[in-house]
């Protein structure tokens, strides 16, 4: 139980990542590839946010930040904020990539009338 609890977050992020990679490589429908890509990206976010978690800590906002400005802040009370910052950026990058990928997929559909990779390749030849 101990060892299971200690590492399972990391195992599950690997599982999500494998699903994403499988979707990106094995699926021929362009939309499915995009979904796979998004899952892949969220898997990385799971990984990073799991790094930031800390036992017995609360959210990274200093309590009573207004009044007693110099009250002692105990590091152990707050989770690690750095991965959160990094992952905000990653989410934004993710939605940007998603938008561009969807736009390209849609113009491919306009051009070839299909979203299936093999049909498009047939039409290219």
């Amino acid at each position, binding site marked *: 139980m101990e060892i299971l609890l200690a590492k399972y977050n990391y195992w599950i992020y690997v599982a999500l990542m494998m699903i994403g990679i499988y979707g990106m490589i094995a699926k021929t429908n362009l939309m499915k590839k995009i979904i796979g890509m998004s899952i892949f990206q969220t898997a990385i976010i799971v990984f990073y946010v799991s790094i930031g978690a800390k036992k017995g800590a*609360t*959210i990274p*906002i200093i*309590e009573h930040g207004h009044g007693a400005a110099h009250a002692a802040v105990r590091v152990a009370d707050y989770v690690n904020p750095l991965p959160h910052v990094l992952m905000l950026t990653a989410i934004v990058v993710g939605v940007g990539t998603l938008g561009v990928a969807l736009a390209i997929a849609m113009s491919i559909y306009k051009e070839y009338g299909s979203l299936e990779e093999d049909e498009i390749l047939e039409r290219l030849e």
Partner: protein
Amino acid sequence: MDTIFIASGVAVLILMMLTLYRAISGPTAIDRLMAVNVIGTKTTVLLIIIGTVFHWVEMFVDIALAYALLNFIVTIATSRYFQHHKNLCPVGFGLRHRKEETKND
């Protein structure tokens, strides 16, 4: 006190799992939409429950609010789809292909 909240949260999650069954296997897309909407509502509740477990609900209410608002937009967007395309359950649906050649719309 925390134990009660955690227990109720776990209960909500288990209910969510039941709804997820409908979301994945549901014969028509409307079933899925409904199921996912229910999951969305449960998520809002869970966000607040997590807030109480962290003893700082104020910080979580904002997220829950934003969440509920955006969930509403998604639902409307999906409903728009059905307004234009009446086909709720096209052939070749679900986890398996039922027929080879299909054409929706």
